[in-house]
């Protein structure tokens, strides 16, 4: 369980994350939605200790993230940021292998290799595992990064806009994979996402942020609601039920 209590983050006196408290259940997908500059990425970066919070407390399974050893935390929680501009001569397999660093400290054991194989299979990267990253398309590279996170084998996975620059097919593919990770392997996934229809179709809970504050946190069906969405985005969004899914029409 991830517990966030009264967390603040200020950039030059401006409150980017303003007194946020929430707790996230295990074994669910929680989507963070909201307009640009709402503090979604900042919040998720603080949970994964990429940036320091200014105030408040964040605990994962009861352990304060600032007091836990870096290496231990890396076995528990992993994050994938939106910009992955690695300019190294790396193959897909080598990148995925980096995911084992918290366990092996760079020297891959046989068990590590097996985990790498599993991650590669899971993301269906077998055919391109020996290709260099700079030879891949955006979608393939994104999948390779997710495979690395899988190899890291953490209970909690945080993803910051994983669907950026991906076409529909790849987006759906990645969301389905995430769903499988939760349903089959019992992972807990936190995801920052802009497309509210993807959030609506694949997540269990949605956290809606605006101006650094939580506007609404609840089950997907409660948040995907005309009034709530109007509060968040300041626009009228029509919601249609198609095959039990709530689809927002905002065009």
């Amino acid at each position: 369980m991830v517990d966030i209590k009264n967390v603040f983050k200020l950039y030059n006196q401006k409150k980017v994350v303003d007194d946020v408290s929430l707790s996230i259940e295990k074994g669910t997908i929680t989507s963070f939605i909201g307009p640009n500059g709402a503090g979604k990425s900042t919040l998720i970066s603080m949970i994964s200790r990429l940036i320091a919070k200014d105030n408040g407390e964040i605990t994962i399974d009861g352990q304060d993230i600032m007091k836990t050893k870096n290496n231990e935390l890396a076995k528990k929680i992993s994050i994938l940021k939106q910009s992955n501009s690695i300019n190294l001569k790396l193959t897909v397999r080598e990148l995925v292998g980096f995911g084992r660093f918290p366990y092996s400290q760079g020297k891959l054991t046989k068990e590590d290799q097996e985990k790498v194989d599993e991650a590669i299979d899971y993301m269906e990267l077998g055919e391109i595992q020996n290709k260099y990253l700079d030879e891949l398309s955006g979608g393939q590279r994104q999948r390779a990064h997710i495979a690395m996170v899988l190899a890291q084998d953490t209970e909690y996975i945080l993803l910051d806009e994983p669907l950026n620059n991906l076409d529909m097919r790849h987006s759906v593919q990645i969301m389905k994979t995430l769903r499988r990770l939760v349903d089959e392997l019992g992972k807990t996934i936190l995801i920052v996402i802009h497309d509210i229809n993807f959030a609506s179709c694949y997540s269990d809970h949605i956290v809606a942020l605006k101006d650094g504050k939580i506007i609404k946190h609840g089950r997907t069906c409660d948040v995907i609601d005309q009034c709530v969405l109007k509060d968040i985005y300041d626009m009228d969004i029509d919601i249609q039920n198609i095959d039990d899914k709530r689809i927002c029409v905002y065009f």
Partner: protein
Amino acid sequence: MGYKKKTIILAIIAILLAALYIFYDLRGNIGYILPRRVIKVVAIMLTGGAIAFSTTVFMTITNNRILTPSVLGLDSLYMLVQTFIIFIFGANSLVMMSSNINYLVSIGIMILFSLILYRFLFRGEKNNIYFLLLIGMILGTFFGSFTDFMQVLIDPNEFMVAQDRMFASVNNVNTDLVYISIVIIVATLIYFMRFYKYLDVMALGKDEAINLGVPYDYIVKRLLIIVAILISVSTALIGPITFLGLLVVNVSYELMKTFRHFYIILGAVFISIIALIGGQFIVEKIFTFNTTISVIINFIGGIYFIYLLLKENKSW
């Protein structure tokens, strides 16, 4: 050809060049010439190795392949120290004449400066590495201007001595200093070994490194101190030559085509030794000491730097 093979070939070339330099045209008083040449080669290997190594580490920390530790301002500080000593005590003073004292004073001041700079900058919450580089650059320029100012004021004869220090040269390396340098460099490398495993991960970038459990800020601080010590030692030993690092590390990356720091560093070290011994050979046999090695290095390095900039520009 794999990177392992390439590393071995580079090592062989480096050794052959060293042998060529030592044994070429060996006539006259061998008992005098041979030890002198050997000590020169050792000095070159130390400096070349230290610069190649620290530049690789520095580029990994900053995630930038066109930055060298010279932006930390250590070169300029070295020149400032030399000029200041001449300005205050004169070129004939003990500090200037005795290379041991000069060496220790220079190293001491450079390392002290780095420690103060880091301490000052990393004290607050915002330990942004680019802020450090910016401050280093500004201080470097300040030291440079101050050096120029003093050089204008001193006696022309003494200016000649100062100018001599501006260019790296292995022609009058002191044997004792080489021994001290070996001790310092080996001690630094032993201290470095515990951080070695983090380098590959750190090359992925700060976020990825933290994600994979690297105590990022702690490691960066330690690595920067290591870089400062190595640069100080090599600068005090043969003079300011950090530009060489840019050249050799990039060539090593191009040649090795791998991300593994073990091979990148080894490659850079060997290329650096090849470049320095080769350059020194050219200086001695072709230019018959009419130029110094840093002039050649800066010339070739400058051309390569422009090439790098043009190449990066094209890929946008």
